[in-house]
């Protein structure tokens, strides 16, 4: 694995991290080298399966982190390839030509985070949020609670308790 990282480091300038588990590795590459990198991984290194494609909103850094989790069925290893992209008006190259199902992940990311993948099939069609006209709900500036309270007629009298606080109060009322 280290050899692999070495090779990749030379070609794609990737930064490897120490493995989380024996068969799970993560690395970070430059966003514009990503497609070349995972194409290489798929075609030459045996990472033939795209397990998932997901995003994390680093609102403080103004970045989205995209993780392409690849799997090598021969060695039973997972490799997460991360990239960081700008948060505003963001868009990323589509990889639906590498894996057909990537289009579905991308469609979801578009819907939930507003990350655009130009050229990805049906990327603009809503998945879950039919008729959504607010900012994408998974972006962290979206205040879910406020939205829900404004929109969904909360039932008066409903109490909400943080389970930890609630149990503490129940069990150790004196503390």
């Amino acid at each position: 694995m280290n050899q692999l990282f070495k090779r990749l480091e030379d070609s794609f300038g990737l930064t490897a991290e120490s493995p989380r588990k024996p068969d799970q590795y993560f690395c970070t590459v430059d966003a514009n080298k990503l497609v070349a990198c995972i194409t290489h991984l798929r075609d030459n290194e045996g990472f033939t399966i795209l397990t998932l494609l997901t995003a994390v909103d680093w609102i403080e850094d103004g970045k989205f982190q995209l993780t392409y989790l690849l799997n090598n069925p021969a060695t039973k290893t997972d490799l997460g390839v991360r990239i960081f992209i700008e948060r505003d008006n963001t868009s990323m190259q589509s990889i639906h030509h590498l894996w057909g199902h990537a289009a579905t992940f991308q469609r979801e990311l578009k819907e939930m985070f507003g990350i655009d993948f130009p050229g990805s099939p049906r990327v603009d069609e809503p998945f879950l949020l039919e008729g959504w006209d607010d900012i994408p709900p998974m972006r962290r500036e979206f205040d879910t609670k406020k939205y829900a309270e404004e929109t969904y007629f909360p039932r008066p009298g409903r109490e909400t308790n943080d389970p930890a606080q609630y149990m503490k109060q129940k069990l150790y009322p004196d503390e």
Partner: protein
Amino acid sequence: MNNTHDHNPEKTHQKFLAPENMPRTVIGPDGEEIHIDPLNDYFCSERPKVHEPANNKIIEKFMNWARAESLWVLGFGTGCGSIEIPPLLSPRFDAFRYGVAMRPTPRQSSVLIISGYLAVKTLKRAIRSYEQMQNPKFVIALGSCTINGGMYWDSYNTINRLDHYLPVDIYIAGCMPRPEAILAGFDQLKKRIKEGRAEGANEYARNFDWYKSNQKKIIKDWNMPDYNW
């Protein structure tokens, strides 16, 4: 219930009009132009009507008895409660003996069971199905999610109170209620029907504007006339 988002229904309607619902022009066999407005041409745009109970008390009582003893449930599962329905029909609980039966088409069903949380997307389908059922029709809502949102109370996409969207006859609390509870709920519903209090369909028709505005507030791409006949 104040709404910070400014919704102009007409504008929203236009924005989310499905491509196949766009008005269009086709050429007929003799070359004549035919203007198609799918919403008006394909769908009946009547409003629902109130169907008053029969004047004769005895007849109405008899009918209500028949309605109560023959509850045909639409096979529509939402949320986690849908897994609680099949056991109802199993030999252990055997809901058939109470006159409960599942029907695959809303036209023939009289009971709609909302079996758990409703995403907006599912709500849209639930409403369409409800509207296609025939008067009298009854709604049973399962679980806390339908009562007050349950664990999804602050979700961006899940409703909190079903009774703002559909006239609910029976709420069955629990997360989820077990089949026994549901059977008890059926029993309650029967009582309500026999007492002539289960007039949800008429209530829906009477307060149609209120229900519709609530529904349209969150369902912005309704894409059909107000009432789905």
